[in-house]
């Protein structure tokens, strides 16, 4: 036993364990639990029926009550495991009167037995309430919200990539009067958060008639100073000789931009695209203000509205939260390396 323990706690270099190792072990162990646990709990809960969600204490896995079709009864009857003086057996409930349940043996449906409800527990097995996921799409507006979110995310990202890279190109590859001023202006507004300009921005968006329009959500977000800044820094590293050589070959400035500079900027564009997708998918405060009609809600705004109702239907809400989480989790799984490199390198978020 002690030898096994010694093997398990053996360390590289044969050093003894000190308190920092124990601490590392504890910190990482609880981190797995605290960081992944809540999201995992959300996913497990989202498959539970409303009755199961109301249970306290909750079960870990989603269960479904078993039913059985018994001769002589139209609808399937719920199955219960009954334990009393007569022993333990599985019965189907016909009806309940007060504290007494009338039950039948599925094998022998003729004879009705009376059982105190304290003596029975429902027979359940692991089962998933897929309806939690289907109903919001079929009966409520969630299909619409999803479409709106996809539209906003896709269009905003495309416009961001195009306009930001064009501006970054002009600001990095041409000498002109006022260039320094524009660059300083962009850097100065780098940190101006939306919450500082909410009110006047609303009046402007309303002035151009974009309230309750998805374009009113998209346009104020696409001229991100962050994007211009990031792309410009990257383009500055592209040697000007390349551009000169292209001009010798009679390439137009536009061709130089999209055939030479853009492909060389691909890594920075990829980082910006990933961040833009995550930003726009997750945007909440601005859409919340611009969109007040249900047809134009994005997923985030729709979820919030749903969660704010007097009688929160948690079984639907949890399932839709999982749906909202999926694209970001996919981005995380496949593109984590780009994101962590982007943050560590530029402090971007």
């Amino acid at each position, binding site marked *: 036993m002690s030898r096994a323990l010694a093997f398990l706690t053996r360390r590289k270099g044969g050093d003894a364990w000190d308190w920092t190792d124990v601490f590392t072990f504890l910190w990482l162990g609880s981190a797995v639990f605290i960081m992944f646990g809540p999201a995992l709990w959300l996913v497990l809960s989202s498959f539970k029926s409303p009755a199961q969600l109301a249970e306290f204490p909750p079960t870990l896995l989603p269960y479904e009550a078993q039913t059985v079709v018994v001769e002589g009864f139209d609808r399937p009857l719920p199955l219960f495991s009954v334990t009393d003086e007569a022993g333990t057996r599985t019965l189907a409930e016909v009806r309940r009167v007060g504290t007494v349940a009338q039950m039948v043996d599925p094998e022998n449906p003729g004879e009705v037995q009376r059982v105190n409800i304290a003596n029975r527990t429902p027979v359940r097995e692991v089962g998933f309430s897929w309806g939690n996921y289907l109903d919001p799409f079929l009966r409520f507006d969630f299909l619409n919200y999803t479409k709106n979110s996809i539209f906003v995310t896709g269009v905003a990202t495309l416009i961001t990539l*195009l306009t930001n890279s064009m501006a970054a190109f002009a600001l990095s590859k041409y000498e002109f009067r006022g260039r320094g001023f524009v660059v300083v202006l962009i850097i100065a507004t780098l940190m*101006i958060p939306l919450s500082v300009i*909410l*009110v*006047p921005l609303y009046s402007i968006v309303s002035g151009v008639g974009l309230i309750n329009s998805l374009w009113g959500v998209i346009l104020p977000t696409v001229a991100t100073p962050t994007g211009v800044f990031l792309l410009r820094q990257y383009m500055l590293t592209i040697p000007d000789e390349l551009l000169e050589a292209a001009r010798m070959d009679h390439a137009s400035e*536009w061709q130089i931009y999209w055939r030479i500079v853009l492909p060389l900027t691909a890594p920075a564009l990829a980082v910006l695209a990933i961040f833009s997708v995550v930003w726009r998918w997750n945007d909440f405060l601005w859409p919340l203000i611009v969109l007040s009609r249900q047809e134009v809600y994005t997923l*985030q705004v729709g979820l919030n509205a749903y969660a704010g109702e007097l009688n929160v239907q948690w079984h639907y809400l*949890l399932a839709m939260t999982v749906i*909202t989480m999926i694209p970001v989790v996919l981005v995380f799984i496949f593109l984590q390396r780009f994101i962590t490199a982007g943050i560590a390198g530029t402090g971007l978020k």
Partner: protein
Amino acid sequence: MTGVKGMLGAVVTAPLVALARVLEVPLRLWQRLTGQGGMVAFFLLPNMAIFTLFVLLPLVINIAYSMTTGAALFLPERTYVGAAQYERLLRCTDYTNLMTCQEDQFWIALRNTGTFVVLQVTLLIVAATITALILNRALRALSFWRAVFFFPVLLSPVVVGLIWRWILDRNGVLNAALVGMGMDPVNWLLERNYAFSAAIGVTIWAHLGFFALILLAGLQAIPRDLYEAAEMDGTKPARVFWRITLPLLMPNMLVVIVLALIRAVQVFDEAYVLTGGGPGTATLFLTQYIYEVGFASLLKNPGLAAAASILMGGVLIVLTLLQLALGKRNERKGRLK
């Protein structure tokens, strides 16, 4: 991996490439007519037009906006009142008792935000530093551990708020665990101090990975031979931390602290979805105050909201300038090396 990347890349670039091709002929003509200057204007125009209309212009008219009153949305239709909105925000008959202030909600939001900033940033920085130090210990499967901490960073604030609302619910899993251990259940989101702590804890949960990642990058940049030299001299680990690790981590640490401050001052979405500002006004923060006064409440007062947002903007500008100054200093130091 490359397959997915290639496919994603193709989906994103295909429409852009098509657009670029279509534009080639008219733009060659434009270049011939206006020369390089015209092309520079063309490249700058879309971004700068959007930028001017939706970032610069609001910034400028916000100041004018904060000096007007009334319910009208457009600036020319509003009545000029000078500094009256600021006076209304800041006036109290007795500054030791917030309830005597004309806009007591603003002062409550200010106090809550102040408390939040101090507590959240302190705890967040300590936790992020510990995490970065641990991740820097040449662990096996570093990318997995990094992912563990980083995963919540990408989640939307609404999702984060809802995940935790579900866990902290009266009949939630946390109370089930408490009852299981023989303790009394707690109304996490309906008791003032618990709700406030929950707002702090949840925002730390959501952002820890981001800050730990920046600190980790700083730690990894510290030359290994410094540690080897210290080891040869038999320096105690605590001393190594205070004399080598922390001073060399300082540039990153300062950036992280300022970034965390800037974010904490603006705290809104996670807390709003989690508690809605409640119970009562226990978790009412500045951004929510601005949102409610400007948009959500029945008695909308956009002028007052603008004034409050300018006061908040003032704080953020100071913090931003601080960050830029620190960045400059780091750059100079980097060049000296």
